[in-house]
């Protein structure tokens, strides 16, 4: 291992000694053990061990390209969709290995929602974007057949659309044009629409990849409020480049550094006030990264 060196030129061993074991009182939503991810021959994550607790906000921070998105995608197995990706190690969600053979991927991804780094609304109307998931899961029926049988859920759909849009701090801006195409929204609006869309299927966990990177301060603070609200019922894992944001909203913070190392993980207050490792302190205070 001493052959490999990091950006700073420090030998890798030193990093591992900096790593401190961290335990939680409550249940772990995710228990990740010895997770390695490779893209072809490039190793994007190295031996990640982490427990992510239920009903709290966990922030992932670290410099660009250090594997935050990769890690996030491991949690709902979206990495399986990348041809080059290879995953080793285990990820357990509520004590069940999600990389086991008997896992229903569709169900898993329904329970673990995701907001992507790039906003990716469907080329459909705003309403259809939000109602898409519930309609596909049969929670809402607006088809011709259900209309004929009298089970028309339009009203419920209206409610759902409004609730999700309000949750994502978008309702005021789009309430009068729900039938317009979502591609006509601005980048920040699209991002909030994607958050609303993820809320609509009522997942148990929400993975967010820099949800506020294209937002103005007002919308950002709305999203931050939303995240804090969500954490009362849901488990939220959020990637952010904004230190203040991580400090404000998260309960735990995990710091990744270049090369795919999880260098430090612990209570947000502790990480920001008293980091164990010099490199993490440098990163947080902006000396490196």
């Amino acid at each position, binding site marked *: 291992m001493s052959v490999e060196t990091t950006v700073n030129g420090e030998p890798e061993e030193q990093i591992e000694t900096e790593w401190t074991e961290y335990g939680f009182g409550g249940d772990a939503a995710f228990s990740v053990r010895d997770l390695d991810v490779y893209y072809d021959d490039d190793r994007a994550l190295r031996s990640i061990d982490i427990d992510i607790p239920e009903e709290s906000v966990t922030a992932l921070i670290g410099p660009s390209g250090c594997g935050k998105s990769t890690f996030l995608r491991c949690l709902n197995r979206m990495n399986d*969709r990348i041809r080059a990706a290879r995953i080793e190690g285990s990820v357990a969600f509520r004590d069940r290995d999600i990389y086991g053979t008997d896992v229903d991927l569709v169900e898993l*991804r329904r329970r673990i*929602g995701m907001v992507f780094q790039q906003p*990716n*609304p*469907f080329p459909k109307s705003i309403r259809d974007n939000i109602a898409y998931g519930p309609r*596909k899961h049969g929670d809402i029926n607006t088809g011709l057949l259900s209309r004929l049988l009298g089970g028309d859920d339009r009203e419920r759909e209206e409610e759902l659309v409004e609730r999700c849009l309000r949750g994502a701090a978008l309702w005021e801006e789009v309430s009068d044009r729900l039938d317009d195409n979502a591609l006509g929204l601005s980048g920040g609006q699209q991002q909030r629409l994607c958050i609303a*869309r993820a809320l609509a299927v009522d997942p148990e966990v929400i993975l967010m990849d820099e949800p506020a990177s294209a937002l103005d301060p007002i919308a950002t603070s709305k999203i931050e409020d939303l995240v804090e609200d969500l954490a009362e019922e849901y488990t939220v894992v959020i990637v952010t480049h904004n230190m203040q944001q991580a400090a404000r909203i998260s309960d735990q913070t995990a710091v990744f550094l270049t090369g795919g190392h999880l260098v430090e993980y612990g209570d947000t207050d502790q990480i920001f006030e008293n980091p164990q490792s010099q490199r993490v302190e440098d990163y947080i205070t902006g000396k490196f990264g």
Partner: protein
Amino acid sequence: MSASHASSATIEDDRSGVARSAATTAVGLSVLTMLLAVANVLNWITTDASVASVALSTLYGVALAVAGVVTVAVGLLSASAVIDANANDTSGVLSGLPVGLLALSVVGLVASQTLGYGVAIWAPAALVCAVAAFLFGSLAREDLTATLPWGGFALFVAAVLLAGVITPSWTWDPRHLGVALTGTITVPCLAFAASLATAWAAAKATQGFGARGRQAGAYLLIGANALFMLSLLVLLVAFVVEKGAGHALRGIHLGPGLSVHVPFVMNGAGLGYDIDGVFPAIVGTFWLVFGALVFAVPLGVGAAVFLAEYAERGRFTTVVDIATDGLWSTPSIVYGLFGYAFILPRLSPGGRPNVLAGMLVLGFMLIPLVLITSREAIDSVPDAYRDASVALGVGRWETIRSVVLPAAVPGVITGIILGVGRIAGETAPIILVAAGGLNADPIRVIHGFRFTSSPPFVANDALLSATNALPYQVYAVIETGVGGSESFGWASAFVLLLVVLCFYAVGIATRMYFQRKLER
């Protein structure tokens, strides 16, 4: 231009303004000359005609001389800094190459043909001149290389035309070439080439050379190209319309009530009709295309979905790719023979031609194109849409059905439009598997359906009878002289054009509908 000499700068600005308007005039003159030359090639004006009592080739000569002089003059003035310009100091190889080629051909032709030197003299002379021109064209200032060679060429052509070296009665019959060039075609072609050259050069001069000048030149060339394409299309359509519309609209009258009766379109052919028409052929073409679509679109799109979404990219998909590309470029007569030898004997006793076989064969021809274009369309749907849907816990097939396919529909329809254009005009396979003379009555596919008491419970005799189709009708009338005059064939071609345009219109409208749904 230095700001300290304010007065000289304004004078220079004035001069530049004059030079630029002169260049603009030269562009206009050259474009007019080009149009005249095109009209001449199309024989709207004959080469030995005269316009306002001036012989056409004299007219060309004068116009080219003026344009050439203006071009050369602007170039020289710009190079000697009399007028304002922002030309580059050297022009580069790309500008040198055409100049070299121009010199090679002009010097070569003049030395060998006009002056009559042997190959030992003209070939080296041409080569030396070409190299010199190439060097000049690559290394000299841009305003010189952009104007002098081309303006010079125009002046040269003008001299040739005005001196009567090449007249309408001139012919050139090279020994080793199978064709003879006559003055009637050479004169307009020369005039066209020279005026295109001066138009290009002068267009650059109007913007003072440099990047903006090149932009103007490119704009002119691209515009000329687009215009040329468009006129070719218009010419083709106009030709068919001119030949066919008269006959096709013969005997048109307002029928009972508000209806219009167009005998050629609504009648069959035979003893019972005052004017023979192509209605059975129209109906036949419609059913053939419709049947082919019903057969090919689901199969093609289905295969495309499988290949694009499910199949692992590997040897299998490569083989399928090669096979579909090959099938698409297979000549239609091969499909026709396949249908004749394989499908016909299995569909009807005695292997009589029938509509169903025609639908199948045209469908086979259509499948590869639908497959290729649909796959392309599906592949170009961004992965972000699929990821978004999958991350919401929606299954793979639901994702394809609700997100991928709707986004791919416009591309799929484009493929279908192209395919219909091909099969609607297909003649060879129809002759072999579906055609049965210029019959008087249209096939009645819808009325042909009968229910039977034994399996397969439906029968349709119309599908198993032979039909006529528009391309076959054109072929039969023009080529073998079956069933009437040549104008009957032209009128059929005209109607075929209209029918295909109708298919296009339907396709394009559908595509626009789906595109709008994706965008707004």
